[in-house]
């Protein structure tokens, strides 16, 4: 079926070529990093994780959000999602691959990555994260591919796949829960040391992921004959509304606990992110952009009739996605390191090479997504014509 991805319009080829160029630049930058070490990045002794791990964290959420299609469709038999559930599963595959690549590019000794499984350490959350991510990747490839094969032959998917689909649901929840556990179980990192980190991760994931899916569905409708259907898109919008509000509520809880308790360690990172600390304020404007975009998007979602207009819906989805990307893909991870355990304020800014590597990984993810979506769309278009 993959051969369907080999033929396409001129625009399609140009898009692929564009991705390959970015991947090439990323590989060049990564070769530099392998040669010289992670010193080529903006990371430091105090801010020891940067954009790589932050992107990993954000993309785990995007991957997990496929469950927002799988669960209503397979458990609640919500038929409207039947047409696009594959888009969710394929998005999950691309996102998990990017997650794994971000972990690997962040490693000082990537050639030793197998040590995680050669010396399994169940006490380490990273061991569990690697395990559930691999499991979730295999499950999505399996479920997505079997469903698509059946669709291409115009038959119902085989019964044996059902258990795997059901297992993928708790796996989706677990990948983001375990990712939160990487952070929220560390003593002395006040910003992360909160029991609602995992629920907050899930809430923001179930807003950002479906927002991206709606954008992809609208894009697919424009470039092919395949239409996900307004009903499915509107239902996804409802999911985004609830998830975005719950996420905002969780953030509000964090702010209340930090500032009403008035405990300095709990307030410091919020102060750093939203007002600046000891004159260091490089993230302040970004964090406010995130907050304003998020609040405006939620307001538009709540005003009756607004989300029915395609233009407004596209704006809402872009706003939600960018807002949560800044919140989780930048603020949450980088903020956790400020101030340092010895109360120094060290700021981080990524280098050009580091950004090229990040873009390269995203381009690899987009290439995987493009190939998988193209394959699926050719089959879906063929069935549509019949």
């Amino acid at each position: 079926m993959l051969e369907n991805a080999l033929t396409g319009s001129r625009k399609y080829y140009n898009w692929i070529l564009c991705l390959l160029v970015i991947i090439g630049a990323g590989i060049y930058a990564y070769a530099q990093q392998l040669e010289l070490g992670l010193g080529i990045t903006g990371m430091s002794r105090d801010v020891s994780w940067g954009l790589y791990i932050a992107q990993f964290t954000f993309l785990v959420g995007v991957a997990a959000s496929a469950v927002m299609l799988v669960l209503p469709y397979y458990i609640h038999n919500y038929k409207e999602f039947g047409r696009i559930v594959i888009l969710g599963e394929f998005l999950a595959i691309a996102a998990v691959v990017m997650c794994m690549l971000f972990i690997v590019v962040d490693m000082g000794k990537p050639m030793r990555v197998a040590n995680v499984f050669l010396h399994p350490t169940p006490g380490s959350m990273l061991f569990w994260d690697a395990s559930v991510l691999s499991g979730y990747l295999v499950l999505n490839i399996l479920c997505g591919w079997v469903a698509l094969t059946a669709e291409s032959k115009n038959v119902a998917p085989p019964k044996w796949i059902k258990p795997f689909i059901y297992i993928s649901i708790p796996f989706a929840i677990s990948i983001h829960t375990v990712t939160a556990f990487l952070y929220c179980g560390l003593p002395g990192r006040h910003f992360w040391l909160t029991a609602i980190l995992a629920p907050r991760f899930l809430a923001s994931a179930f807003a950002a992921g479906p927002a991206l899916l709606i954008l992809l569905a609208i894009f697919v409708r424009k470039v092919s004959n395949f239409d996900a259907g307004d009903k499915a898109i509107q239902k996804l919008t409802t999911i985004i509304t609830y998830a975005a509000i719950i996420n905002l509520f969780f953030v509000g809880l964090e702010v209340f606990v930090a500032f009403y308790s008035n405990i300095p360690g709990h307030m410091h990172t919020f102060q750093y992110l939203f007002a600046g600390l000891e004159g260091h304020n490089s993230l302040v404007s970004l964090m406010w952009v995130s907050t304003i975009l998020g609040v405006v998007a939620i307001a538009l979602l709540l005003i009756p009739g607004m989300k029915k207009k395609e233009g407004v819906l596209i704006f809402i989805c872009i706003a939600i996605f960018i807002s949560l990307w800044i919140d989780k893909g930048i603020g949450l991870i980088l903020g956790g390191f400020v101030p340092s355990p010895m109360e120094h304020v060290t700021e981080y800014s990524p280098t050009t090479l580091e950004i090229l590597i990040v873009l390269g990984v995203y381009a690899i993810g987009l290439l995987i997504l493009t190939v998988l979506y193209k394959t699926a769309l050719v089959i879906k278009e063929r069935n549509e014509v019949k």
Partner: protein
Amino acid sequence: MEESRRDFLKKAGMGSLIGLGVFKTLDKIGVEDAFASSTKEGTSGTRLGLVVDARKCKAGCTECINACHAIHNVPKFEDPKDEVKWIWKDGYHNVFPSKSGQFIDDETKEKPFMALCNHCEDPPCVRVCPTKATFKREDGIVLMDFHRCIGCRFCMAACPYGSRSFNWNNPRQKDGNKLVGGKDIDPSFPTRERGVVEKCNLCAERLAKNLIPACVEACPEGALVFGDLNNPNSKIRQILKSNHSIQRKPELGTGPSVFYIV
């Protein structure tokens, strides 16, 4: 191969200390009973640690740092972002952020405090390491296996004391004969490769040769005392018994084995 090397690292310290008649050597320098409990109850009863008597520590002095960094081939990077350090000085407020800093006396305010790995009883770095590259030895020392570390830096996020450094760059100069910063390489201790984490090892390699930690030996004021915290008769315990001491961030439950007399 890997396992036997690690086992060696774990046991070499204790085994050789007892085997080579360490007590005579340690006798001379006043920590005669550093390992006494190991003979009584086996190695599991030992908890090696340090007392830092900040009252004796002199502001301009860097003897302990020099000694430690020289024998452990710690490079010196100009950019603080790339810094590697095993033992260093910082302010009272930085070493003890949860202690009161209001109306603090001038001397404490100005005085530098030594910071190093606390060799915690329950180390978070060991808990989070996905490959057991960092591990706690039976005598309480938290060690690094530079050959197993994958450089994920989870331990750096987990350490609440900022005691861990990552080799962002190659610690050796390009030609390979000197460390970054210009110092010669001490062939008796390995240099690291870029991409692994390192930290104070409480001189595990010296303990194996009947020597006390280099920082303790180098201190001209006798401000650092090394010994077995689990032995009530040890000198370190006697000092703790007769002086008020504090640990760094004890509220986190890590059980630091480095005690400070302020």
